[in-house]
């Protein structure tokens, strides 16, 4: 009844048809809203009721620091530079253990900070991690009154441990330098390498 061609009606017919349609369509709309008045609401009373997030939801980052090998790949991948990693090389006399994925840990990780306030939840840091120690969780309620509290520190090392690791590395470096110097002093100086001969130029066009 709505696809009447108005051009075929006279002005008077159009006038009455418009009035009829105005009332009729208003009633259709009111019937619709009446039905919705008794439809159960779709609202979820959030703090009381929470929806389960999808399995692959990207929310707060979590770092399992025991598995971190300090490779810095997540920090490199981060588009907003919210991950700060500092490492101290482990010396051969220390055994840092292996990760749960079997990778040998060679670096101490004294600083592993994620400023979650900067994080854009892109998940790009998760994919390069060789030990799968940085993951996105489904935790989304972590508001703070102070922005600085959103800078999460994941490193498990105490300042004392850091100092010990640094000291060991310094001693090891000194020893190595001393060894090198001793070796350099003992061994005769190798002759200067001869100028390498330039390879014959390749023909510009392949010979036919």
């Amino acid at each position, binding site marked *: 009844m709505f696809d009447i061609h108005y051009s075929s009606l006279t002005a008077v017919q159009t006038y009455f048809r418009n009035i009829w349609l105005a009332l009729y369509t208003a009633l259709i709309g009111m019937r619709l*809203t*009446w039905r*919705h*008045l008794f439809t*159960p609401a779709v*609202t979820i*009373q959030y703090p009381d009721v929470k929806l389960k997030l999808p399995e692959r939801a990207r929310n707060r980052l979590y770092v399992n620091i025991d598995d971190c090998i300090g490779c810095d790949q997540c920090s490199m991948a981060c588009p907003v530079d919210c991950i700060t990693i500092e490492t101290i090389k482990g010396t051969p006399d220390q055994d840092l253990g292996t990760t749960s994925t079997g990778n040998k840990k060679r670096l101490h990780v004294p600083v592993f900070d994620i400023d979650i306030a900067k994080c854009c939840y892109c998940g790009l840091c998760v994919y390069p991690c060789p030990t799968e120690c940085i993951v996105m969780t489904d935790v989304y309620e972590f508001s703070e009154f102070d922005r600085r509290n959103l800078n999460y520190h994941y490193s498990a090392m105490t300042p004392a441990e850091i100092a010990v690791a640094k000291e060991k590395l310094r001693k090891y470096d000194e020893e190595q330098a001393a060894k090198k110097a001793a070796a350099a002093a003992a061994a005769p100086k190798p002759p200067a390498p001869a100028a390498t001969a330039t390879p014959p130029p390749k023909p510009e066009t392949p010979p036919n």
Partner: protein
Amino acid sequence: MEELGKTILKLIPVIGDQLADISVLVFVIGAAPPLIFILLYALVTLYTEMKVSAHIQDRVAYMYTGYHGILQPVADILKLIQKEDTVPDSADKTLFRLAPYLVFIGTYAGFAVIPFSSAYMGSNINLGVFYLIAASSIVVIGLLMSGWASNNKWSLLGAMRSAAQLVSYEVPTALAVLVAVMITGSLNLNEVSKFQDGGIQNWILFGGPMPITQKLLLLPFTFITFLILFLAGMAEVNRTPFDLPEAESELVQGFNTEYSGMKFAIFYLAEYANMFLVSAVATSLFLGGWSSPFGSFMSGPVWGVFWFVMKGMFFVFVQIWMRWTLPRLRVDQLMYTSWKVMTPFLFVCIFAVGLILVL
């Protein structure tokens, strides 16, 4: 203002002399019930409107303040009382402060002739509806005053629209009232209600207490008249689909953009009171007012209040329901509806009803 104050002070003894035998207390007691009713009704309607609008949109609205948010209107009022009552620097301060009260007074004055029951009516004057239409015109002045005094372009536009709209829709309202008045022969709403007493078949909506042939002839015309009266009334209340003066998507909040705190609350109260006033007039004229729909069953002065409030609240609900169903009309559509549809239809109705009554 001082001049005005002095003039009023001079006038008071004059009025006092004339009404010396009636104490002021009688007036206050007589005028109080509608005010108490308006205040309570506004709380209920505030809650109803929010709940109905929410459920129409498949939401739940207030849920925390009391059981299903039942105390939320009280909390809203408390908030409005606490709010800073600002007056813009560039506003006309006197008019700005006066406007909301004028709007409310215009509406409240209308309640004087509404018969809440066969036993209670603020003022039993024989002009009844005529006085009501005149008194509610004060609202236009109040709205225009608020828009002009705000010194704000949105307010002014809203006020202009409201003036144009209210003046236009007073014509169909008055004409529709005339149809009922022609049938009953009285302007007094209490008389009109009494005329329809004795059951649902006596309501003017269904032709009134006439002989059956006359009744059947009257029925289509009274039905159309009632529909027009209700719609024109909705337009007078400035509610969607006729909410052009407020039109929050185009005019911020229209004439009350600059208002806050209690003054804003008064505007709101006036709007809700006006909603009931319009429903009350439609009820009294066409649906038997305080008379019971079952004849003598459940009738009497106390049941009268019940029936009157129930009928009024039903139409308040319909207004809310329509508000959350229909989109806003365009200005030209608004004027078209008033002048080219409602007014001619009512002329036909008045003519037909007059003819049927004479025959």
